[in-house]
């Protein structure tokens, strides 16, 4: 049984009703005195019960705060060298150092990132959430006041929150491109009612869904392979902790909408590449094209189940069995890459160890559909604070990013990368598995919408895809358990 009082909140259980967030960034002061002040700050957070565990007890709090620390932060806290050396290489190097592998080049190059990400100075991350903006402000102010004198706060902080679209009273589940988001998180073993009904786990050998072992997302527990993943030392520090990947991903909404508009017009000039019900209506063609790129319709219904029109059915319980040729959901569609389910054969076993828990949240204002592309609001920054939790950054997040998002070989798509999030550089080339340095990859930003032999619909090649998503910052963090935090605050982390 999991100890939910020990596990930080927002890992196994998402904060659904806390729709406003602010991320506060801090740097520990230098030297032994700085480390001591850092520990004092952690102690104060714990003493004042400001860190929210997964188990809220009897009363739901009106705000939540969670904490994560980067490798630079652990070094600044002056942990013993054996403990520091026992953390995995991906985490030790940090996100900036692995930019080439992640496809963070060109427009996404770390030199072009926003502050405070242009250096490795983000030592400590406080993630604050609430359903009430005033309460969130008050909580953040309390935390900033508490940190003053003990830590150096880095600016700017990052506001985020679910989108408010039009005159809706309720925050929307949509992201900026207009798709309902967060629909396919894995169902985690023993996570109680933490996941929604729509969540499903991994496929078993009979094609049924089963829960994913918690060890894929939490250190010190059994994972998909039946083993406990290698852990940093000492176990007390890392048990019930996890690794957090945070990325500030700017979404180029104007570019995306413009592309859909232009490509839809080009599509309409190719007889036979669209279903009859869609072919004559430019709005429907745009909607169809966007859905084929994403693998879900904007309302969340899976393209694999509903290949020609949205159905308002946000199910997650589907596989690609029977659609091996991509006639329903294109082989290179975003959601089919991010979670290929049974696409890659072997009863899903190739995919099972590449799952992540995503807790991303949008930032910036939603751009109304009728906004002028040259208006001030169209130029405003908007995107998603991508947050993913995994037991191994390299095996889970980095593998997906490198092999499935920025390369297409596994999906029989050659060098073609993800149509939504793939990195194109220079003259439109994809990064490819050979890496950007060699210049050996000359595929353009391209996506094939496979044809359907049953209906006679012919294939269509979407061409000249630009970057729709640009990395503006990010880091790898360690999210300790409550016990781990107490140990860190005590200054007595020891491998002896």
């Amino acid at each position, binding site marked *: 049984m999991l100890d939910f009082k020990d596990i930080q909140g927002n890992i196994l259980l998402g904060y659904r009703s806390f729709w406003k967030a602010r991320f506060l960034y801090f740097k520990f002061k230098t030297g032994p005195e700085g480390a001591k002040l850092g520990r004092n700050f952690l102690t104060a957070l714990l003493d004042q019960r400001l860190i929210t565990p997964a188990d809220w007890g009897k009363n739901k709090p009106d705000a939540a705060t969670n904490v994560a620390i980067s490798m630079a932060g652990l070094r600044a806290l002056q942990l013993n060298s054996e403990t520091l050396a026992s953390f995995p290489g991906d985490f030790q190097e940090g996100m900036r150092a692995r930019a080439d592998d992640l496809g963070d080049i060109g427009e996404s190059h770390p030199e072009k990132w926003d502050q405070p990400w242009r250096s490795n100075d983000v030592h400590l991350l406080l993630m604050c959430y609430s359903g009430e903006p005033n309460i969130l402000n008050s909580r953040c102010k309390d935390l900033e006041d508490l940190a003053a004198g003990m830590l150096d706060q880095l600016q700017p902080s990052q506001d985020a929150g679910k989108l408010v679209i039009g005159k809706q009273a309720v925050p929307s589940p949509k992201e900026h491109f207009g798709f309902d988001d967060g629909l396919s998180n894995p169902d985690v073993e023993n996570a109680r009612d933490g996941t929604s009904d729509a969540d499903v786990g991994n496929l078993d050998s009979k094609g049924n869904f089963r829960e994913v072992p918690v060890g894929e997302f939490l250190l010190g527990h059994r994972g998909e392979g039946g083993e406990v993943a290698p852990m940093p030392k000492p176990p007390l520090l890392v048990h019930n902790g996890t690794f957090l990947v945070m990325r500030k991903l700017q979404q180029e909404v104007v570019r995306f909408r413009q592309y859909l508009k232009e490509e839809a017009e080009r599509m309409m000039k190719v007889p036979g590449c669209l279903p009859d019900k869609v072919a004559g209506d430019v709005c429907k063609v745009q909607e169809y094209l966007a859905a084929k790129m994403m693998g879900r319709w904007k309302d969340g219904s899976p393209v694999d189940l509903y290949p020609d029109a949205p159905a308002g059915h946000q199910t997650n319980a589907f596989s690609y069995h029977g659609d091996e040729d991509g006639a329903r959901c294109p082989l290179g569609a975003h959601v089919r890459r991010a979670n290929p389910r049974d696409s890659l054969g072997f009863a899903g076993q190739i995919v099972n160890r590449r799952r992540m828990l995503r807790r991303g949240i949008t930032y910036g204002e939603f751009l109304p559909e009728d906004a002028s592309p040259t208006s001030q609001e169209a130029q405003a920054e908007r995107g998603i604070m991508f947050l993913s939790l995994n037991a191994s950054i390299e095996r889970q997040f980095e593998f997906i990013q490198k092999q499935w998002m920025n390369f297409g070989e596994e999906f029989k798509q*050659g060098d073609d990368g993800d149509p939504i999030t793939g990195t194109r550089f220079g003259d439109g080339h994809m990064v490819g598995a050979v890496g950007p340095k060699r210049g050996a990859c*000359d595929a353009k930003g391209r996506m094939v919408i496979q044809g359907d032999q049953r209906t006679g619909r012919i294939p*269509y*090649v979407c061409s000249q895809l630009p970057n729709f998503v640009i990395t503006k910052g990010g880091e790898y963090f360690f999210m300790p358990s409550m016990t781990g935090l107490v140990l860190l605050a005590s200054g007595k982390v020891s491998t002896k």
Partner: protein
Amino acid sequence: MANTNGDKYALTALFPIRGGDENHYEQLRSYLRNLDKDPLGSPLSRVSIVHMARFAIIDNLIYQGLPAKRDRLKSRYLLFMCDFDGTGLDPLIGAMSSQMGDVVDKVWEHCVAYPGRAKRDLLTAYFERCQLTTTLFFCDQPEAEVSKILRGLMAKRAFAQFVEDNQRQPRAGLKQRFEALWQDLCDRPAPKPGSM
């Protein structure tokens, strides 16, 4: 059959590294470490018959069972593994000598009894003397030569571009345009190794 799979030949060879006061071991390690700094990639990627190759230096062997035991080697060894198009070592020696000759000298001059490149048969015999039998090796396309794979990649990309360019063109003339593409592909030389 040992060393071969289809039209591929796999070489595994251990070359003793020279001892003495001239630091051959350090120099060789340093040279190999910097081979990939070339923006075009490893010089082996430019050798027209090489599919895959790997260098490693073996400086100690430790048996890690119980009790652990250190095997004393007579010298340090350069391990060179390579699979290429051919049925024996001679084509590889010829291709490496002509297409990365300076690299061959800079690597193997640190090895015991390197005869130089002046006489190809001597160099082939030298490699054969240091060769180990390879019984199992990775061979992704046993029947395809490097040039055929490069040509295949070129054709695949050209065809993808053709589809993209022609999907909005009238059907009339499509066959002629495809024939023109086909002829163009037949006329083009195979891409240079390492260029794809």
